[in-house]
């Protein structure tokens, strides 16, 4: 059913989505925490920046990332100074781009979950002399767990479905940057519709299962932590 190139693209996609999800949970949680708690005048600007990829065409993001990561761009200068070379056409270039692209899908559910907790659990923890780390791991994390799970699932699924950004900076290198969405595009453009169907239908099935389990899970928990289209 799948060709060898298809299987390689599937494996690469899963690897990309897993790494991006893990990194985004680490980066996104403090951002979400800060956004949920702060009264800073910068809150609006940071929220907007995080949400931008929801509205921007991926080509815009991909185009500027290609320039910024290139030998003359500021990210490119930085990575070259570190001796890493430049990021376009590499797996880690896709990771960096996907982190920008999938950021809102991770930050927003966590932020919503923390906001819906209110101040009381943390105040109660504080009166019991819990430090900030203690109260985060033993109070916030268990109470806001559905939000974190939603964030991880959405971040993963959205990275799997990414196309435009990868097309712009990926360079279509087998085993390195050719993910499933690009592989499907190749099949369609090469008029190989049969193979395109096989991969596309698998993607639809995957997306359906992911979103259905998410709604089922949210319904069971009686929580709504997804504002995005949910």
């Amino acid at each position: 059913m799948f060709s060898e190139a298809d299987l390689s693209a599937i494996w690469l996609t899963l690897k990309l989505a897993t790494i991006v999800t893990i990194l985004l949970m680490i980066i996104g949680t403090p951002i979400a925490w800060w956004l949920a708690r702060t009264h800073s005048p910068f809150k609006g600007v940071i929220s907007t920046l995080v949400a931008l990829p929801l509205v921007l065409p991926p080509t815009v993001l991909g185009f500027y990332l290609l320039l910024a990561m290139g030998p003359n761009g500021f990210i490119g200068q930085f990575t070259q100074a570190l001796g890493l070379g430049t990021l376009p056409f590499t797996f880690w270039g896709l990771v960096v781009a996907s982190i920008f692209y999938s950021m809102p899908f991770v930050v927003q559910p966590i932020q919503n979950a923390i906001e819906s907790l209110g101040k009381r659990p943390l105040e109660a923890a504080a009166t019991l002399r819990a430090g900030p780390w203690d109260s985060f791991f033993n109070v916030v994390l268990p109470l806001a767990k559905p939000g974190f799970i939603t964030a991880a699932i959405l971040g993963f699924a959205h990275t799997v479905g990414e196309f435009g950004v990868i097309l712009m900076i990926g360079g279509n290198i087998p085993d390195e940057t050719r993910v499933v969405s690009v592989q499907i595009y190749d099949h369609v453009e090469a008029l190989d519709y049969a193979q395109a169907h096989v991969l596309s239908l698998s993607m639809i099935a995957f997306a359906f299962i992911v979103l259905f389990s998410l709604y089922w899970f949210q319904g069971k928990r009686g929580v709504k932590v997804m504002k995005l289209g949910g």
Partner: protein
Amino acid sequence: MRFLNLVLGLILCLFFSLSASAERITIAVASNFTAPMKSLVAAFEQTSKHKVRVAYGSSGKFYAQIKQGAPFALFFSADQAKVSALIAQGLADEKSRFTYAVGRLVLWSNRDNLFLDGQHFLATDNYNKLALANPRLAPYGSAALEVLSSLGLLQQSKAKWVQGENIAQTYQFIHSGNAELGFVALSQVMRTGKVAHGSYWQVPSQLHQPIKQDAIVLNSAKNSAAAKAFISFMHSKAAKQIIAQYGYEHV
């Protein structure tokens, strides 16, 4: 009453004769031919009462859209394969097929003085990335592949390939400096009749099959006067001159 009928009839006649004499057609054009087609359409509309509206895009997508009944009168493909496929599907008449341009390949770098002789420079292997259009999708990509194979550099260069989905993206990879050099269409790096900047090596045409770009009249426009007029314009000397200015050969 009779008078009113007469007037109405006259108006209708006028309307139909007008619409028959000045038609507007929409044509689908492979994006590598964007610049010359803009000049061609402008030149055509100066002498003709017909209007031409152009959609630019990838030939693979146009093929899919035409199969689903997209309202294009003519299709200017980037290759010959999609035109053959449309004929085989019974969506276009083989007799109307013609080659409107032959593309020419260059090895190009954004950096000045990087190389004069591209063949020699490729052999030194002294570059970071080699950009080419995806050979599976783009005729310029498969031509690049033939060149590398003619030069015996296929295996050696393979690890350095980055593939654009078309030559526009391939150009972007090189222009942004992310790939030091790559194969693009001569038409992309030419400005007002010559290569504007960077290093380039025009690939000798015997190193690859000619990059023939075919056009065809789609069945929906079989009887369109505008389509006929535009095609006969494409065969004119004026049109061929414009095509050559943009770095294509004409047939």
